[in-house]
Every structure is written in C-alpha cells, then in structure tokens.
C-alpha cells in the first residue's frame, strides 16, 4: 500500500522526465521534425533575439540586417544546411562557408536578406 502511494507520488516526475527525454532524443536526431522550416525557425529566432535592441517583449519591427550580420558568428547556422531549398542554397553557403572563406559584410547582408525573406514567405504557407 505504502509503495503504491510512493509510486503515485513519483508518477508526475516520471511522466515529465519521459517527455523531456523524448524532446531531447528528437532534437538530437539531426534534421529534426518539420524539415527546413523548423530548423530555420530555430536559427532565425536565435538570430533575431541576439540582434534585438528593443527592451519591450511585445510585437514590433524586425531587427535590422546590419545588426543581424554583426551577430552571425554567435549563432549556429548549420541547421540551415539540412533540406535547404535550391533557390537559397548559394545564399546559405555564403552564410555557412565550407572552406573558411569569409564573405564581406555586404555579401553577408545580401545573403541573409535572401534567407530571411525566403523564410518569412516559404514558412508562412509551406
């Protein structure tokens, strides 16, 4: 009786830890669910967050491209390389260079504008 009661006490912890384990296993599987758009969401949100200068926590205009380019080196962009749509493959390769070839800020801004613009359109209706 006592052990059944103790098991009941532990049940919520076991359930939530099982959900956490599932989240971690799915997340660790590489491409993750949802394909390119889901991966791009993670990247774009983190980039926006790092480039944001406003103090409020509501809705507002997106951060500037210049601010985002300045934060590119702080964000893991490799998820953008999974299932990348052909139309932005070149732009992603500018942002995530294969051979340590560093693009200029202007090139990065242009490539980032293409990738973010593509994301906002493609992943709205995909």
């Amino acid at each position, binding site marked *: 009786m006592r052990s059944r*009661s103790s098991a*009941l*006490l*532990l*049940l*919520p*912890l*076991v*359930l*939530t*830890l099982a*959900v*956490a384990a599932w*989240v*971690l296993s*799915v*997340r660790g599987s590489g491409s*993750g*669910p*949802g*394909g390119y*758009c*889901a991966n791009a*969401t*993670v990247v*774009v*949100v*983190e980039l*926006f*967050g790092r480039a*944001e*200068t*406003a*103090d*409020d*926590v*509501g*809705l*507002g*205009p*997106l*951060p*500037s491209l*210049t*601010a985002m380019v300045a934060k590119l080196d702080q964000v893991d962009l490799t998820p953008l390389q999974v299932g990348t749509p052909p139309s932005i493959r070149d732009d992603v390769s500018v942002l995530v260079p294969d051979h340590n070839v560093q693009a200029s800020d202007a090139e990065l801004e242009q490539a980032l504008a293409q990738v973010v613009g593509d994301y*906002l359109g493609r*992943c*709205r*209706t*995909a």
Partner: protein
Amino acid sequence: MAEPRPPRSGYRVRSLEGRNRWLVIAVIATFALAPFVAGAIALAQGWQPTGDVAIIALRSRDAWTADAPLLGQPTTGEDTTGVRSRHPGPAEFWVLGLTQRALGPRAGVVFGIALVDALALAGVMGLAFRRGGPPLLALTALTVALLVRALGASSLYDAFNSELTTYPMLLALFGAWSLLAGDLRTAPVLAAAATVAGQAHLAGATFVAPLLVVGAVTVGMAWRRHPRAVRRDRTPLLVAGGVLFVGWLPPLVQELSGPSNIAALWRTATDSYTRLGSTLTLERLATAVAPPPLFVRPTGRFGFAEPPSALAVVAAALVIGASVSLALLVTRRTRHRDPLRFALLTALVTVTSVVASAGQPLLAALRADAARWLWLIGAVVWLSLAWSGVHLLADRLADRVRPVLIAGAPAVALAILVLVIATTPLAHQRDGALMPVTARAATAATDAVAPGTYQLSYEGSQVLITVGPGVAYRLAAEGYQVRVDDNSFNQGYGPARTNGSGPLDGRIRISSISDRTLEGERRVATVASRVPGGGRSSIWVFVST
C-alpha cells in the same frame, strides 16, 4: 503541519485582525492601483495609440452604435491560409467604447485597459488570499510583481488584444481553482475573466476553455451531490451564467446571422501548413519553466524562443513534475487538497496550451505577445511548487518562515512594482519611439484638411504597421471619417471603413519610402523618424483635396 486547512468557503478579510488585515487590504489595493499609475505615467510621457492598438481603439468607437463589432480583431490566419477569420469576441471593443466616450481618445484607451487589468490583478490577489490566506497571498504578490517586471510596465495598460489576455487568463485560472475547491460564489469571477481573455485572442481562448469546462463540470457535480449548497449559492451562479450569456451574445448573433467565424477558424486550423510542432513548443515550455524561468527575467522580444540547453529541458521537467508530486505529498500528509487542485489545473492548462501552440503556423514562433501562456505557466508552476513547499515545512521552521514570508514578500513585490512602473521610459516600450512621430504626423494631417471623409493610404512598413493606424485613429477621434483599402492588413478597421462608399473630401497619403509628391498632392509634413537598429529616416504626409 505548517499550514492549517482553510475555512470551507475560504479565508475572509473581515476575519483577520490588526496588522494582517491591513496588509491583505494593502496588497490587493496596490495591485488594483498599479495599472492606473503605470497608465497615468505613460500618458504624461506622451503615450499615443499606434499600430494595432490604434486600430482597436478606432473599432471601439463603433461599439454601442449600429455598426457595433460582433467579433474580435482579425487573426493572422489569412496570411497563412487565405481564410479570413477573427478572434472570438468583441468584449475589448465594448469596454473601450465606453471608456473612450467617458475619458477621451488617449486616456480612454489607457485607463479602459488599466481598469480591466486592475480588476484582474485585484481578483487574483483576492482569490489567492481566499484560498490560501496571507501566505499564499504573499507568494502570489511576489510572483505577479516579477511577472509584471518581465513583461514590462506597459503590460498593465496595453490594449493590444494579445497582451490584454495576460492577467485575465491568470484570474481565470484562480477562478476555476476556487470553483474546484467548492467555492461556488466565485463563479462570476471565472465567467468574466474567461469572457475577456477568451474573446480578445485565440491564445486566451485555448487557455481558458478547459478552465470553463472544469468550472461547468464542478457546478454540475455539486448540483448532483450537494443540491442544497447550489441552491444557497444560486445568485452568484446565475450571475455567472448571465455574464457568459451577455458576454458571448455578440459572437452568437454573428454565428446565427453569418458568415460563421467558427467555420472560418476551423478551416484555418485544419488547413495544410507547416506547424510549430510539439518539439519546438515543448522546448519553449522548457525555456519558460527552467531556472531562471521567463517570469523572473526580462528577455527582449525573442529571448522567450531561444533553444534551451539539454540541462534546461531536464530541469523544466523536474520542476513541472515536482509541482504535482509535492502537491500530492501535501494531500497525503495533511488531507489538504487545494495545492493538488491548483497543481492539476496548472498541468491541465499546460497540456492544452502546448497542444494548441504546437498547431500554430511556424511564424507564430516569432510572436512573444501571442505566447503569454508561457510566462503564465512558468509563474504558476513555480507558485504551486513554492506553496506546496510552505505546507511541507516542519512546524518549528514554519513558525519562523511564515511571518517573514507574509510581511517580506509583499514588501519586495511593492518595491518591484514601483521600480518597474517608475523607471520604464516610453521609448523602451512597444512603438514608444514612434509615438511622437505619430502625434506629429496626425497633427499635420488634421491641420491641413477640414473635417470630412478621407481615403488614407500607407507606404512603407513603418507607416503601414505603426504610424498610419495612429493617424487614422486621431482623425476619427477629431470627427473625420476615414476609409482605407480593403486588404488583409486593414480588416481591423471595420467594414464601414474598408468598404465605404460615397463621395470623398480628399486623400491623405503617408509614406516612409519617398518624399516625392504625386500629381494633385501637397506635402504637409516631414517628420524625422527612427528605424529599427537606431538609424534615422523620415515620414512624409501628403494630402489632396
């Protein structure tokens, strides 16, 4: 045990004596006053309706007229699916319709929402005291003060419909909990809070819907098991039913007269598009709950969506699981079920909010304002955990902790509120930097043309999203009739403004793209503006009559 079981129908202020009585009254009064003080400071700093708030304020002018809105703001579903739909109900418009008429176009909007939030916050504090006495009131005061700090002072008077839901959602949770505890007299509180939160935004509706179901089932079961108690409390129960009927009558009329908004929402929800998904949603929940949880830290607009570390995911799972496990332990040791009821209700709204959020379009990932459930869940999970912890303190320790908690937590809460409200400049709030620009552009427009009917057009995202609606509202508030193009951005202006017919007295064009004057136009204002990231730009106002 540390905490005595509460009286059957809850604690009463009048049963307290001396210092404790005044402390409880002071805490409730402080949270009731805070939104008005924050709003008054914003008005003194030059607060102007802009963007969605201006559109909401504009549409509120139609409430209590023949063109009264029967539904809420347009949803962003049209952007994703092409189906036009609206948030469930017009309660916000009807409230602001009254306060605008009474207090004017600026103060009416600010104080109208401050009134809603004041009632919600005072209600939360009142119910926290009723359920858990001074210790729970103290913990709740501290939690909510931290929440206000995280969301910013503007959350106390923000008319943006997705923001308006925040504190009424919290009140609905406390209201449902009170009903579940057998306190049937609090039914009107749940009904009113669920009506406001559920009508203003779909996120609020998905949060309060399970709470309303719990409330209805509780009353139904009470009717079967304790009919005498239900008969005794029939007046508040009838009031609750009346609130729900009157509050939801406008959407019901819309459903009966058509076109059906429920059908449009259903088509939107079941359409094919890439959804946020359960993994990303659960990661967000982990960010919201894991130490330090969202409600104790200002995050900026996107910080809420940052991917959590593996450790944070595990920590969040432990915190959520422990909040229920500890409440079970309290029930086993003390036979006191209220902490368990609170923990289970919190778990219920967590599950339903996760499911609803996972079905949203991916771009919803960028909208902090539509994800306030994350802040609330983080806050109430920790509150539940802390309250169970207080119950489990050993008697000797509890005797020492209780007085410190009861006096100290409200004092810290008050200090936080004062600091947040007194030290947040308008420029740091949403659209704050563009409010002076909007005011100058609106003044230029009203100075340039005589009252009449004008077609407004916008160029540039800053104008379309923020400044333009502010100018339109100011014109309407000064007696002008405004019309705008019928497109997805302008649906919130109402059918009389998007489908208006009849002669025009002129056109007003506002641009943040070009200063070029078109044929027949004259430029009446050039207003220096700011672009995101700190750059400078200009906004130009042109009129043709």
